[in-house]
Structures are given as structure tokens and as C-alpha cells.
């Protein structure tokens, strides 16, 4: 006799996508159950324990703006913080943190266990209950039936995982998780398109066998940044040093000599690896003129001796790994604790998803994370938050949502995936965002928190702090605009003293802040209202980017208008004259919901968009 349980939303998988999905769903008030094969692995960092980086910390801040937990957990677990691109301007500035793996996992577990409306259950899901194309729940190994209105699948690389070390290979998921075969089989029966990707990891090294005196030190930044808008450095645990070393000619020789024993080069692996994260054998072959490659040595935590040598992922045989590691400065006596490996896995073509991350074929079923062809904790978590909140909205019968490309990196991520698909593990870069100056890590709250509040995702605490901050920004902007500086007055002299800028005509502080030589600290000194110190930089960034943002606004307005043109599903793209065959097929496959989305499909021309517009209007006029 099987047990029956009832929930609004079921989340399968407790990784970064699964936890954000479960928490988001529960925050909106939906009764939610997170089912994981192993509760001990909830919040586990299966690769190197680093959060953030260029494009990625942008996502983390967006998750934070929607009251997700990734940034908060990073502040509680981070043992090394840096600001990247500090000198290249605020829009491309990013925060990166090295986390203690254990602390991070514990923190996430704590958030999950303390969340109202959220229950945990450890079981393997073996089947999805689907009635007439609508998901109704899931069945677990013990025949327990979980009824739910929505189900979010976040099971990472578990599908068809194949691990390669040298010419040996075995099936498995990442970090030792067993593959879940019956669910995988069940999913394959559904009409989703499946393709194959690959990725790799470096061998891990025992710190006690490393000669640190040989290594370049890379300290964290001072002043130290925080990840969450609500974070403070008082939350940070003890900080650690990172190190840098390099490969050399000997390393490269060993690799070249053993290429035929690499599954990558012998043709044994057929999944597509990421272009931005080549294995060390790839680097040595493709960039043969380089005599060294950089390795970042990252500690895995405060209470472990394991190190993650970032930059030498490899699938060469174990004996070659030992040999090549020991050619590296500082690693002469290194002990490998876990060999590096390449893993191939299946993913679902994200073009089979809607922008809400609901699947097109099964109503109420959502996919988030690596299963959609992405890589990275941040990309996974961001999708989880979106899928989880939509699963809850769906269960409540409310309209689903997603941010647009000009509103969030999350919008760029979803739009890229759903519109273009991907043929390598998809990772975020700032160059993917055409509105990069708007999508900054410093203003994710201004971009998203109100939206999150309306969706029920944002708690009172965050909302109050956010409102207060926005109020201060507005007040300060106003204040600076009204703060006149008249040539020849004491104030003008004082301004000159602080900034070294001599004004030649009367002005106000807001206008003066646009000048390259003038910064927020200068004007804050002049107005002497310490209350506003924290928002001074925000005002400076806004005023300095103002001209560019106005220019982008015209582009955004156009997208806005095109977003309002709904392309009716009955449009027959295949019969549409005047489009190339390739475009017809792409359109027929993707079925873009709006004109703006059609405009993002590769190969579309303005003339083709005009045609779509006319056909759409024709259908509307007829009905």
C-alpha cells in the first residue's frame, strides 16, 4: 500500500538549483517538498569551492536581490574575497570568493531547514506522474506518491554520466553521487531532445605535500568586499591566502608524450567541452607557443588540507597526472588526493523550455540548472530561483514571470538558452549582455527587488532595507542637484582644494560629479552628511553612466514595443514566403512568443521581422 502526500510544489535535487528553487517556492507561501537522494549532499559544491567572478557575481547579486541564499551563504563561508576589474569601471566589476566547502554546505542546510513551508525528504525519485501532458506528482523508490501541481527537476549531471580517467571509464554522477537510472530512463521516453556535454576537473592535492615557499601569494582584497546586499565582513570566517604557480616546459613535454593516452585526443570522448575551460592537454596542444600556464591554487576550506589547483583539469591517466603535477614549482613532492577526470553527461536541449523554465511538452514540469546545459553554481542557482518561483506561481494559478535581457543577467541567461540553445556548457560572461552598463552588480537590488517583492519572494527585512536605501539615493541625488557652487565663493575654493578642479562657471554638485576628476568621496566631504555615505557611490555611478544609459534606453524602448507584439501560436512559419528555409525551420521550432524574442533568433533580418509583424497582425485582425 503506497503512502500519499500532497504538496503545491516538489523539487527534485538538492544542489544549487534545487535549494534556491525550494526556498523560492516556499518563500512565496507554497507548500514545498525538496526530495533529495542524499540529504547530506544538500548545498554541496561538487567542483572548486569558489563563488562569483565576472558575470557570475552579477547573477549572485541578482539572486540576493530576490532574497535567495547564495550570496548570504557566501558571506558566511567565504575565506578569501576579491574584487575583479576594480579599475575597469563599475559595470564590469565583480566579486569572487573562495568558500569553505563545509561551512557553505552547513549554511545552506541551515537556511533550508529553517524555511517555513519547506520539507525535506530523502528518497530516490523513480517516476513522474503525468496525466494528459500535465505533471501530477512523483513516485519514489519506496512507492511513496507525492502529489503536486508543479515539479522542478534539478538533477544536474546525473543523466548518463560517464567518467573518464585515462582510457578507463565508468558510469556515475559527479562527486560520487550514484546515477539515478530509472528516472533517467523515464525522462528519455518523454519527447525532450537530449544531447551530450563534457567537462573536467583537476587532480586535488594535499596541502601538506606542497612547498608554499615556492609559490606566489595571492591575498584577499583589502578593503574586503561582501557578497550580499545585507552582508557585512563581520559575518566572514577567518580568511586564507591563495597561491599561484605555473606549468613549465617539462610539464608540457610529459603531456605531449602521453596524448594518445588521453580520452580527449584518442576520440573516446564525444561530448563537447567548454571553449573557456579547456583541459591542460587542450591548452598545451592549441597554444603550443606558450611556455607556461597559470595555476590558481585554491584552498578547499579551513579544516581540510585539500587544495584545488585551478587551471589544470585533465583526464590523462593517473600515473601521468602524478608525473606532470610533480614537474610544477612547489608541487615537486605533491600528493594527489583525488585524480582529475573528465565527465560526459546528458542535458536537455533548453530550446524545449518556455522562458519560465517550464517544459514545453509537460505542463507544470520545470527544469533548472546543469540539466539545461549550463555550468557553474551561480548559473544553476539563478535558474533554480526562477523555476522555483514559477512552479509556485503555477501551483497558485498565477501568471509566470521572467526578467528581460535589459533587466537582469538572469534574463540574458534564460533568453540565450531558450532562444539559441547551447552546444557547450553555458557560462555567463558580461559580453553576453548587450545592456552591460545597466546590469551591474551594484544595482541588482534596484533592478529586481521590487519585482521580487511583488512576486512574494522578498522578506520584510530586505524590503525595508531596500526601500530605505532607494530613498537615500533619491534624497542625495536631489540634494546634490540643489547644492550650487558659485565661482569665487568659499565653497568653490573648498571644492578646488578637495578635487583639484577649478570651476570656471557656476554649477551644482550633481553636474560636477559627472567629471572624471570628481568622485563620490569628494562631494560627500563637501556636503558633510555622513548619513548618506553609503549611497554616495551609487549616485556617482548613475550620474557618470547617465549619457550611455539614455542611449541604450532607445534600444530598450524598441524591445519594449516588440515585446508587446504577441506572435500567435497558430502562425505557420513553414508556409511563410520570403523567409529562408533555415529561418523558417528555426522559427517553427522555437515558436517565439513575442516579436522581441523572434528578433533574438540568429539570422533574422529586419525584413523578416516585418513579415512576422504583418502576419501576426493579420491573424489578430481576422479574429
Amino acid at each position, binding site marked *: 500500500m503506497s503512502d500519499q502526500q500532497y504538496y503545491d510544489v516538489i523539487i527534485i535535487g538538492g544542489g544549487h538549483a534545487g535549494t534556491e528553487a525550494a526556498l523560492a517556492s516556499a518563500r512565496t507561501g507554497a507548500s514545498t517538498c525538496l526530495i533529495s537522494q542524499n540529504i547530506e549532499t544538500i548545498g554541496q559544491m561538487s567542483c572548486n569551492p569558489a563563488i562569483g567572478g565576472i558575470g557570475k557575481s552579477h547573477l549572485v547579486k541578482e539572486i540576493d536581490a530576490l532574497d535567495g541564499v547564495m550570496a548570504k551563504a557566501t558571506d558566511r563561508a567565504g575565506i578569501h574575497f576579491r574584487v575583479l576589474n576594480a579599475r575597469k569601471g563599475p559595470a564590469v566589476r565583480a566579486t569572487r570568493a573562495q568558500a569553505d566547502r563545509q561551512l557553505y554546505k552547513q549554511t545552506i542546510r541551515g537556511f533550508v531547514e529553517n524555511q517555513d513551508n519547506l520539507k525535506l525528504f530523502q528518497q530516490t525519485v523513480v517516476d513522474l506522474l503525468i496525466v494528459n501532458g500535465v505533471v501530477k506528482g512523483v513516485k519514489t523508490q519506496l512507492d511513496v506518491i507525492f502529489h503536486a501541481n508543479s515539479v522542478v527537476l534539478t538533477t544536474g549531471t546525473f543523466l548518463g554520466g560517464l567518467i573518464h580517467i585515462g582510457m578507463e571509464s565508468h558510469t556515475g554522477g559527479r562527486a560520487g553521487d550514484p546515477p539515478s537510472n530509472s528516472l533517467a530512463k523515464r525522462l528519455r521516453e518523454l519527447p525532450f531532445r537530449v544531447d551530450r556535454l563534457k567537462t573536467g576537473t583537476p587532480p586535488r592535492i594535499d596541502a601538506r605535500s606542497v612547498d608554499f615557499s615556492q609559490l606566489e601569494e595571492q591575498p584577499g582584497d583589502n578593503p574586503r568586499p561582501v557578497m550580499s546586499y545585507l552582508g557585512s565582513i563581520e559575518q566572514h570566517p577567518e580568511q586564507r591566502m591563495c597561491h599561484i604557480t605555473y606549468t613549465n616546459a617539462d610539464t608540457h613535454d610529459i603531456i605531449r608524450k602521453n596524448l594518445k593516452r588521453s580520452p580527449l585526443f584518442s576520440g573516446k570522448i564525444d561530448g563537447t567541452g567548454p571553449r573557456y575551460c579547456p583541459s591542460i592537454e587542450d591548452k598545451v596542444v592549441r597554444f603550443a607557443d606558450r611556455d607556461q600556464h597559470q595555476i590558481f591554487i585554491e584552498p578547499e576550506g579551513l579544516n581540510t588540507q585539500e587544495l584545488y589547483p585551478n587551471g589544470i583539469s585533465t583526464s590523462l591517466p593517473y600515473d601521468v597526472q602524478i608525473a606532470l603535477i610533480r614537474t610544477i614549482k612547489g608541487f615537486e613532492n605533491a600528493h594527489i588526493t583525488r585524480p582529475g577526470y573528465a565527465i560526459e553527461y546528458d542535458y536537455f536541449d533548453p530550446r524545449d523550455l518556455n522562458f519560465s523554465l517550464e517544459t514545453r511538452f509537460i505542463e507544470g514540469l520545470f527544469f533548472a540548472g546543469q540539466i539545461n546545459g549550463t555550468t557553474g553554481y551561480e548559473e544553476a542557482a539563478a535558474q533554480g530561483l526562477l523555476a522555483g518561483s514559477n512552479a509556485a506561481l503555477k501551483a497558485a494559478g498565477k501568471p509566470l514571470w521572467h526578467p528581460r535581457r535589459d533587466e537582469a543577467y538572469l534574463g540574458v541567461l534564460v533568453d540565450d538558452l531558450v532562444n539559441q540553445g547551447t552546444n557547450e556548457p553555458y557560462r555567463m560572461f558580461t559580453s553576453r549582455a548587450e545592456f552591460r552598463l545597466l546590469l551591474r552588480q551594484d544595482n541588482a537590488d534596484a533592478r529586481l527587488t521590487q519585482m521580487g517583492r511583488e512576486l512574494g519572494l522578498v522578506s520584510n527585512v530586505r524590503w525595508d532595507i531596500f526601500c530605505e536605501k532607494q530613498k537615500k539615493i533619491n534624497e542625495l541625488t536631489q540634494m546634490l542637484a540643489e547644492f550650487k557652487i558659485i565661482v569665487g565663493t568659499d565653497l568653490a575654493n573648498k571644492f578646488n582644494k578637495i578635487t583639484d578642479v577649478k570651476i570656471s562657471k557656476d554649477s551644482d554638485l550633481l553636474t560636477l560629479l559627472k567629471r572624471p576628476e570628481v568622485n563620490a568621496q569628494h562631494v560627500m566631504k563637501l556636503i558633510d552628511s555622513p548619513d548618506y555615505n553609503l549611497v554616495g557611490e551609487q549616485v556617482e555611478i548613475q550620474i557618470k553612466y547617465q549619457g550611455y544609459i539614455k542611449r541604450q534606453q532607445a534600444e530598450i524602448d524598441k524591445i519594449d514595443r516588440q515585446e508587446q507584439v504577441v506572435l500567435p501560436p497558430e502562425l505557420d512559419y513553414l508556409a511563410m514566403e520570403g523567409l529562408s528555409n533555415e529561418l523558417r525551420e528555426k522559427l517553427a521550432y522555437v515558436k517565439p512568443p513575442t516579436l522581441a524574442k523572434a528578433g533574438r533568433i540568429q539570422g533574422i533580418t529586419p525584413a523578416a521581422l516585418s513579415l512576422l509583424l504583418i502576419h501576426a497582425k*493579420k491573424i489578430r485582425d481576422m479574429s
Partner: protein
Amino acid sequence: MTSVNSDRTTSGKLKYASGIETDTIAAIATPAGKGGIGIVRLSGPEAQNILVKIIGKKITPRYATLASFLDQQGEKLDRGLALFFPAPHSFTGEHVAELHGHGGPVIIDLLLSECLSHGARLAKPGEYSERAYHNNKLDLVQAEAIADLINSASANAARAAARSLSGDFSIQINKVAEEIKNLRVYVEASIDFPEEEIDFLTEGQVSQKAQKIVSELKLLLISSEQGVLLRDGIRLVIAGKPNVGKSSLLNCLVGFDRAIVTAHAGTTRDSLSESITLKGLPITFVDTAGLRTTNDVVELEGIKRTHEEIKKADRIILVRDASIKNRALEEELEELNLIDNSDENKKTNDRSDFFGRLLLVNNKMDLIGENLPTINISGNQSVINISALTGAGVDNLVEEIIQLVGYQQQTVGFSARRRHIESLNGALTALELGISQLNTMAAGELFAEDLKCAHMHCGDILGHMSSDELLGEIFSSFCIGK
């Protein structure tokens, strides 16, 4: 979903729910066949203001007013009629202004350029009709027709653009675009991969490189304004099987023996072109290698070029020898590889585009007697009977060509050039702004923004690069990856 964003300003522009743009567009809009008059038509909110700037006065709506058309220095470009139709009682439903001039294609092109310098944007193919449709000025039945119009107009424009880019100019544009791309690859790589060991250019070097591109763009603009870009007017390609009399027809049309005429099949192995003015229209005739199946390498190369010429042609004059027995037209076209008759391709755009440009000529009529009509209709395709030897019927052919080609086609070439100049100007402005950002603000991310903008303008001419392709360039240029 929309979010509150303190950075965002609300635009004062009109918001149309239709999704189309709301700026003022301009184009040359002369009906085909009216050789003497050229019309520049403006549509959009600024139409009246631009008109007033050009004629120096306000005019009564819907009345034709005689006026002088002035350039920005107040010099008279032309004299003609000006009209203004206020919204919504106009062809497009927006404010529409028209300038009717007599000065010929070059002057009309200058007039158009004047409108653009006052803030109008060059209309996209079919855009007037599109706006008319969205403002409910056209009914449902006409929607299909507009779709067709957009198709054929954009095909025309694409051909003209491809042609105007041939030779030197295209090499230069490609070179500049390549330099912009390479600089972008550097700048974007340094932004997205700050931790990698990339031998980055110093800011000084970046701005030097950008400065060099600016000078190149300026040179390019000067030469394109001088007309280097537009070498020929409309282009008519004479094609057909060997020995049907193509070269003879070219000679006949241009009036002297430019092409070698022989009785051996396959004499013309390369394309020859000759430009003449027919009733005031500059026209280039291209004689081509005869089409047939062959194994001769040299001849095959000639045939390949013939196909390329056919792709670029405004019209294709297909010559057939009337003195011998010919296969049915469709069969012959398929045999010559000019159309694909398979079912799946029967409805394609390429095919209807090809037939739309086709002009059929039966040659050697002298050999079968003069008692056939000079023009006959077979199917829905008209055929002109001529003798390239005696010259009989060639005047009919010239008449037909002028009818078909008219003034409109002529201006397509000018618009193509205008569009390129607009794009180059856009790229130049963006780069200059970017350099000043880099030099005065040390703002790398803003420079990157302007560089992207310049790259997009080049993309308008050469085709755009997606962000993923840009990333691909970065990954193949630099060893990136932890």
C-alpha cells in the same frame, strides 16, 4: 515584467503598440517608368519640420506648392513641388511630406541626404507600406501584397548593396571592420578574463589603435562620398546558351563591337560589361559565358561567373535562338541550373525572385521570317522577338527595359550607397566618442561600449557578429581557462 530602475529614464517618445519604430523615415519614392521626376518621401512625426527646413517655409497641407529645395548652407539644390499631408489623413497614417524634383538621380540623392542630415532615417525596404498597414490605412487583403513587397524590395536592396561593395571599396571596409573586431576581441577579453595572463594592450596602445581606425574611416568616407562606391547604375545581365547571339546583342545595344562575335560556341569565357545611358538612365549590360554542361575547366569557371552575375543582376535578359527547336522554358532553365524544379523548391522565394527579374528574348528572327509579332506572350512571361544581326526589334527591347527598370531601380543603388555612408558615419562617431572616454575618463567599459557600437555599424554593411561568435574569437585568440 518591468522593474523599477532608478537608472532608467522614461522615454518621451510615442509608444505604438504595433512594435514598429516611431522615428521619421525617408526614401526616394518615384514610381517606376517616370524617368523625369524624382520624389523624396518622408513619413513620421518630424516630416513637417524637416520639410520646412529644406524649403524654408511652411506650406498649406494637401496643396502642391512650388518651392526651392535648399541644402544646409542655403544653396539651392533643385526647384520643384512640395506637399504635406498631416496625420492621420495620409498614405501611411503618419505625417507625410513629399519633395518632387526634376534634377535627376544625383540631385534626388543629395536631397535625400539632406533629409537624413535633418534627423530622418533611411527607410527600410517596404517600410512605408508596413506603417500604412499598422495604422489601418490598408486592409487585410493588402497584407500579403506588402509581405511580397518587403521581400522583393529587400532582395533588390541586398543585390545593390552586394554590387556597390565590389572591388576596392569592399576590401577597405572589410579591413576596417576586421581591425575594429580585433580591437574588440582584446578589450572584451580583458574585461571578461581579468585573471588570465593575456598580454593586454596598455590603454595608450588601445587608443592609438582606435585612432588609426578613425583615420581610415575618414578616408573611406571621403572616397565613398565622391562616388567611388557606386560605379554603375542598374545592371542587366545577358545570359543564355552558347551561340544564341548574346555577344551580338550586347554589341547591338552599345553600338560598337565590344565583344568578340564568332561562330564558335564558347567564345565568351568571361563576363564583359559595358555601361551606356539609355534615355537618361545609366545602365550596365553584362555579356556572359554561355551556359551549358561541359567539362572544360576554363569554360566551367566562366559559367560559374555567369551564375554570380545573374545573382547580382537587376534584370536577366535570357536570349534564345528562335531558329532552332528549343525545349520548354522551365525545362531549359532547369537544364542550365538557373532554377530548381523540385517540388520543395517550387514555392521558394529565390525562384519567384528569379522570374521577377527575367526578360525573355528570341533572337535570330531574321532566319525564320519577319511575320511574327515583335512581342508575344508565352504563359505569363512576355517574349521579345529580335534579330541582333539586322537590329530588328531591338528598339522594342530598349523600350521594355526602360519600362521595367524605370527610375525606381536606379535609386536602389543610390540608397545602398547612402546606407553604407550612414553606417560608416555611425562607426566613426562612436569610435571618436569612445576614444575621448578612454583618454579623459580612463573608462575602459565605456570605450568597450562605443567600440561595440562601431562594430554594429560595420555589421550593418557586412553582417553582424553575435556575442557568442565574439566569445569564440576570444577563445581562439587567447589561451583562456582555469
